[in-house]
C-alpha cells in the first residue's frame, strides 16, 4: 500500500508511540483490504466507552490507556493515549446514572462508563452517545470522507448525505481518531458508488412503517450491494429514511442506496446507475409487502404485550412528540412498560417542550444513550415486546430471547395502554 511521507513519519513514531500503533493497524487493515492508499478523514464516529467484561478487566490492569491500546488500536504496547487527532464522537453505548431504578442494568457498568466518559472527554471525544450522530450536530457534507461505525448511521451518511464511509469497526475508528486516516477503499471510491440493483415499488409507500418494510425488502434483495429505489413512493423525511436505512442494513448489509430525485448522488435513474443500463427490477408489490410484514412478525405468538420499545434508531424530536400526543390522557396497562430511546440532546428538547412529561404522566419513559439491544436490558420478566422498528423486531428476539410484534407507533402505544397486541397490516 502506498504511504505518503507524512504517513511514513507517523508509522515510524514521529508523533509518538500511540500514533505509530494506530498507523500500524491501518497498514495491516489496508493490506487486508488490498487498498491502494489511505485517505484523510476529519470525522470519526466510533466506540470507546461502551462497558464490557473484557474492557473492565483491561481497565483494572492498566487503566483506560490500556483499554484503548488493546481494543481501539489492537496493540499490546504500553501506550499513553494522546488527544484525538481529528474530531471524534462516541456512538451509542450503555445506560447512564439516570437509568438506575428504571432499567435493570448493572451499577458497575454505569460506573465504568462514567469513568470512561471522563477519560475520553479529556482526550477530546465528543460524547454524543447516540446511533444517530447526524441528528445531533455531526452532519457530514457531501463527498466528505469519514470513518464511522454503526450500520444505520453509515448507510444514512453515505446515501442521504452523500458522505463517504465504509462500515468501520472499533479498532479502525480508534486508529483513525489519532491519525485522521482510513483505507481509501470501498465506498470512498467513485466506482463503488453506482447502483447495482433496482427496486420497483408498485404499492404506495408513504408511512414510517412502510418505509421500514421497504428498507427491509431492499436489503433482502440486494445483500451487501447498492439498491436504487423507484416507483410509487412519497417524498420521505429524515425519520422515514432513518428507518429505511436501518432496516436495509439489517436484512442485508446495505451501506449505500439511491432514490432518484431524492438522494444527492442520483438526480435521475440514469445518474444512479452512472449511465449503465439498469438491471431487471425486483418488484415490491402487495405480496412482497405482506411477506416482509409476516417475516417481521413471525416471532410473535402471545398477544399479551409486556414491553413496548420505540426509538430505534434513536428517535427524532418529531417521533417523541407523536408518542406524547398518542399517549395524551391515557395510562399504560399495569403489566406493560413503554420505553422511548432518544439522543440525550434531543431528550433535552423534549423535556423543554413538555413531551417527556406527557409520556411520563402516562407511565412511559424517555431514555437516552443506549438501547435494550446494546445493553441487553429490558424490563424484568419481559416475554413479549412490540416495536415500530424493523431493526429491533429483527434483532431483539435473538439477543434477549423474547417474542416480537412489529407495527405502527399508534399500534404500539395502543398495546402499551391495553396490554394486548391488536396490530395488523392495513
Amino acid at each position, binding site marked *: 500500500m502506498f504511504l505518503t511521507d507524512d504517513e511514513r513519519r507517523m508509522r515510524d513514531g514521529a508523533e509518538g508511540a500511540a500514533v505509530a500503533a494506530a498507523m500500524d493497524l491501518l497498514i495491516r487493515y489496508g493490506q*487486508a483490504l488490498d487498498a491502494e492508499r489511505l485517505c484523510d478523514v476529519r470525522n470519526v464516529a466510533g466506540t470507546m466507552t461502551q462497558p464490557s467484561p473484557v474492557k473492565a478487566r483491561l481497565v483494572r490492569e492498566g487503566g483506560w490507556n490500556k483499554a484503548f491500546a488493546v481494543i481501539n488500536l489492537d496493540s499490546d504496547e504500553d501506550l499513553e493515549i494522546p488527544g484525538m487527532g481529528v474530531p471524534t464522537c462516541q456512538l451509542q453505548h450503555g445506560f447512564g446514572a439516570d437509568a438506575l431504578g428504571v432499567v435493570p442494568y448493572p451499577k458497575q457498568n454505569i460506573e465504568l462508563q462514567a469513568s470512561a466518559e471522563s477519560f475520553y472527554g479529556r482526550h477530546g471525544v465528543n460524547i454524543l452517545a447516540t446511533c444517530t450522530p447526524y441528528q445531533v450536530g455531526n452532519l457530514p457534507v457531501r463527498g466528505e470522507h469519514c470513518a464511522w461505525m454503526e450500520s444505520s448511521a453509515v448507510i444514512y451518511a453515505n446515501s442521504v448525505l452523500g458522505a463517504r464511509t465504509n462500515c*468501520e469497526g472499533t479498532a479502525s475508528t480508534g486508529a483513525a481518531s489519532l491519525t485522521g486516516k482510513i483505507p481509501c477503499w470501498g465506498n470512498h471510491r467513485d466506482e463503488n458508488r453506482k447502483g447495482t440493483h433496482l427496486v420497483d415499488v408498485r404499492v404506495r409507500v408513504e408511512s414510517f412503517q412502510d418505509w421500514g418494510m421497504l428498507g427491509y425488502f431492499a436489503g433482502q434483495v440486494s445483500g451487501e450491494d447498492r439498491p436504487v429505489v423507484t416507483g410509487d413512493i412519497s417524498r420521505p423525511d429524515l425519520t422515514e429514511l432513518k428507518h429505511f436505512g436501518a432496516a436495509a442494513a439489517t436484512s442485508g448489509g446495505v451501506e449505500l442506496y439511491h432514490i432518484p430525485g431524492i438522494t444527492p448522488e442520483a438526480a435521475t435513474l440514469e445518474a444512479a446507475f452512472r449511465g449503465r443500463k439498469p438491471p431487471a427490477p425486483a418488484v415490491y408489490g402487495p405480496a412482497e409487502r405482506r411477506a416482509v410484514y409476516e417475516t417481521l412478525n413471525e416471532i410473535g405468538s402471545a398477544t399479551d404485550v409486556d414491553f413496548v420499545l420505540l426509538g430505534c434508531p434513536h428517535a427524532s424530536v418529531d417521533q417523541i412528540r407523536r408518542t406524547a400526543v398518542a399517549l395524551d390522557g391515557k395510562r399504560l396497562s399495569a403489566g406493560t412498560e413503554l420505553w422511548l430511546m432518544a439522543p440525550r440532546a434531543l431528550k433535552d428538547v423534549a423535556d423543554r417542550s413538555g413531551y417527556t412529561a406527557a409520556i411520563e404522566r402516562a407511565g412511559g419513559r424517555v431514555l437516552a444513550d443506549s438501547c435494550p439491544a446494546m445493553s441487553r436490558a429490558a424490563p424484568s420478566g419481559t416475554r413479549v415486546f412490540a416495536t415500530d422498528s424493523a431493526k429491533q423486531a429483527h*434483532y431483539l428476539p435473538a439477543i434477549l430471547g423474547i417474542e416480537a410484534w412489529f407495527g405502527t407507533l399508534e399500534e404500539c402505544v395502543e398495546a402499551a395502554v391495553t396490554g394486548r397486541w391488536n396490530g395488523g397490516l392495513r
Partner: protein
Amino acid sequence: MSFLTLYGRTVVPGIVEGEALVSHEPISGWGGIDPARGVIIEPRHELAGVCFTGKILVFPSAKGSSGWSGFFQTTRLSGTAPIGMVIGRISAKSALGAVVTRVPAVTDLGQDPCAVIANGDWVRIDNGKVEVTKR
C-alpha cells in the same frame, strides 16, 4: 484421501493448519457469536450452537453490525478464537475482523471455498495458498 490446492489473496499473512468449520451462510459478529465461548448463537443459523475455537473458519462473508471485528477481537482476548479464516467475499468488517483476531486469513480464491471445503477437511493456509486434504 484427495487433495485440493486453492490460490488466493493474503488477508492476514501466516501459516496455520487445522480442521475446517464451514458455514454456507454469512456470519454475524455482534448478536451472532458468543465471544466468551467461541460459539455461533444466531438462531436459525446452520451452525447455531457450534464452537469455532481452534478451527479454521470457512465462510462466505460477514454480515450485520459494525461490531463484527470487535467481537472477533474479543474471541482472541478470551482464548476462544478460530486459528485461521478462509473468506469468500471480503468486506471492511471481515478484513478488520481477521486483522484483530490476528490469525492467517485468505480470500479471492477463484472458487467458492464454502463449496469445495467441507466440515472436518484438514486445511493448511500458507499466506495466499490453501491446501485442503479431504476427510
